[in-house]
């Protein structure tokens, strides 16, 4: 019985040519394949081929529609409040560090939210920048009235707090909306810039001082259906265990840190104008968006958690 091959159905929402599939899921699958002596195999379904919307991926792992999903919890705004803390403005300094911290934080504090799935990896996408078509963002004054695509619920609040008009929209719509002037700019991670050809429709990229915390991040989870995990023989469970946890999460964060560099290169190759917002200006942005964190604390506390303590704990983990 022991050499039966188990095929895991892995579902995600990006195209097969995405970094997610090529640099993260395929290597991860190759690794469990090798370590199980070929007894664990992935069948990757990209681009929501198994049906549903990206927001429903998490429940697909929970319900056993898929065995493993790569999902953005934040697509279901309000459901994953506790782990959302990592999406607050100016949290964390690199994908690698934040991802390790997120694993530790989420597996300790957010177990209720992630009940029903077995988390394998938590990670963040780093390298968030402001990509604009007509005007370089240098100061908060430049942001006033600018229509900016926001990546997450908290980034929406942050953009509003900085004086711009947030326009939430799915990533696939961003390039066309920029080209057509429906929005003036987008806050998106560098990683997706070349995939969506954003560098071709914008002229300016504004980044914050790299010595300071990241402007914003999006959190991700690689989650497994628990019943599927339980059905595995012990030696295969071990392979899965060996390929999940804080260090694998840190590796995932590193994958996106590297993707940030490739993405940046696309903007450089296009000879777009880059600007690094200096630390004193970033300080003003941080101050202006403090209310976002305060709001988050209130919301989480309303659900019966100690919001202040959670925020402090996340910051401590990130500082290590």
């Amino acid at each position, binding site marked *: 019985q022991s050499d039966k091959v188990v095929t895991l159905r892995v579902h995600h929402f990006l195209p097969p040519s995405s970094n997610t599939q090529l640099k993260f899921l395929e290597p991860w699958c190759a690794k469990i394949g090798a370590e199980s002596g070929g007894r664990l195999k992935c*069948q990757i*379904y990209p*681009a929501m*081929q*198994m*049906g*549903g*919307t990206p927001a*429903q991926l998490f*429940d*697909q792992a929970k*319900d*056993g*529609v898929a065995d493993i999903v790569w999902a953005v919890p934040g697509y279901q705004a309000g459901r994953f409040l506790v782990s959302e803390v990592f999406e607050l403005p100016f949290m964390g300094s690199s994908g690698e560090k934040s991802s390790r911290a997120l694993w530790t934080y989420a597996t300790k504090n957010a177990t209720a939210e992630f009940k029903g799935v077995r988390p394998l990896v938590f990670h963040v996408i780093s390298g968030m920048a402001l990509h604009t078509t007509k005007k370089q963002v240098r100061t908060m004054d430049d942001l006033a009235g600018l229509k900016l695509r926001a990546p997450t619920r908290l980034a929406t609040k942050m953009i509003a707090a900085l004086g711009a008009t947030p326009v939430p929209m799915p990533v*696939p*719509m961003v390039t*066309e*909306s920029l*080209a*057509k*002037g*429906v929005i003036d700019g987008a806050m998106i991670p560098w990683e997706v810039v070349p995939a969506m050809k954003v560098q071709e429709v914008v002229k300016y990229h504004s980044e914050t001082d790299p010595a300071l915390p990241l402007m914003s991040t999006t959190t991700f989870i690689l989650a497994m259906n628990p019943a599927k995990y339980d059905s595995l023989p012990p030696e295969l469970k071990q392979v899965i265990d060996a390929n999940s946890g804080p260090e694998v999460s840190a590796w995932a964060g590193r994958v996106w840190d590297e993707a940030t560099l490739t993405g940046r290169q696309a903007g450089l190759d296009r000879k777009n104008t880059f600007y690094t917002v200096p630390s004193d200006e970033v300080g003003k942005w941080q101050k202006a968006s403090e209310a976002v964190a305060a709001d988050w604390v209130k919301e989480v506390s309303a659900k019966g958690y100690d919001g202040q303590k959670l925020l402090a704990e996340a910051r401590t983990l990130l500082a290590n």
Partner: protein
Amino acid sequence: MSGIAIGATMFAILLVMLVLRVHIGITMFIVGAGGYLTMMGGEIAPFLNTLKNLAYARLSNYDLAVIPMFLLMGQFATHGGLSRALFRCVSSLVGHWRGGVAIASTGACAGFGAICGSSLATAATMGQVALPELKRCNYSGALSTGALAAGGTLGILIPPSVPLVIYAVLTQESIGKLFMAAVLPGLIAMIGYMLVIRIIVTLKPEAGPAGPRVPLAEKLRSIAQVTPVALIFLVVIVGIYGGWANPTEAASIGAAACGILAVVSGGMRAEGIRESVLGAAEATAMIFLVLLGADMLNTGLALTQMPAELAHWVRDSGLSPLLVLTAILLIYVFLGCVMDALAMILLTIPIFYPMVMGLEFWGLTPDEKSIWFGILVLMVVEIGLVHPPVGMNIYIINKAAKDVPLTDTFRGVMPFLASDLARITLLLFFPAITLYLVRTFGG
């Protein structure tokens, strides 16, 4: 069983159910569900759970909201008498040519097509308006019905176009780019149909005698009457391409403008508004039910890996890409004998699209290839509307023209089919025509 074998079995069952009069959407749903359950080893829980998401995920799709809006826009235009104004305008300009009234019918179809997303609606509406005139001017039955059945297809060839929206949603392509790419091929189609009419009346002058010349004042008056329609079309198109609006918003503008115009100058009242809403509701439901079924079918097919396996096989087969593409286009023409345009697109795109995207054509980028293929598919499924035995436009027009035998209409539509084939060949070998506007205006 291999993925291809399971997929083929699914298609066989699908065809049997279709023959037995089960609704297309329900057939797709049941076959997809069967495939899904088979691939899950008969486990029912994943199926029930995936179903939880089906309806809301599909119905809340932002892009799909343009369909009811464009349908409503066409309904308002119809109930507001815009079709008659259009026909009268073109007719006053070219009616005195030999074959001029038939040419005017085609031109008016193109004009109506510019605000209506459906072929049948265009054929029916323009048939109602133009057939009596053609008869009064002693045009032959074959020419009259042939020109209108073909002209009706301009309803989907010229944007807005419901089949293109479906293609865009299935392939994650931009609706705006597809609409833009359809403009030149649509105009070429119109010109092709007009040329066919010219050739017919040159060979057989008695088929389309010249009408009376219309005085200038009358011409100007009729042009003034269609100016609002032209403005609406411009607002919608410029709205999409000029950047003030995404397609859904542009469709909102168009629907509101057509509605206001129909009330103000077309005499549409509460009853007309109700009829318009119910008309749009029925057509929307019809389309969305098939979409829901197609979602289930595509999920089931994806699990079998059949589309991917077929695409790999085709890519590695060493067959010439043009040969593969021509074969695909021919399959559409044959399917068109028994199936409807949207059903064909929903059924086949998940299989053919990865195949085509895996091949190399004229050095096109993936995005260009996807737009170009979409327009080609639109052109071939459109043929299904006018070719015997079951071209819907033929029946719509033939039913309206009571004294024309069906065989005359079949005969009448043949020369127009020839122009369709010529146009498709042209677009197949010169993708630059389709892509010209997209490349020029970017997007």
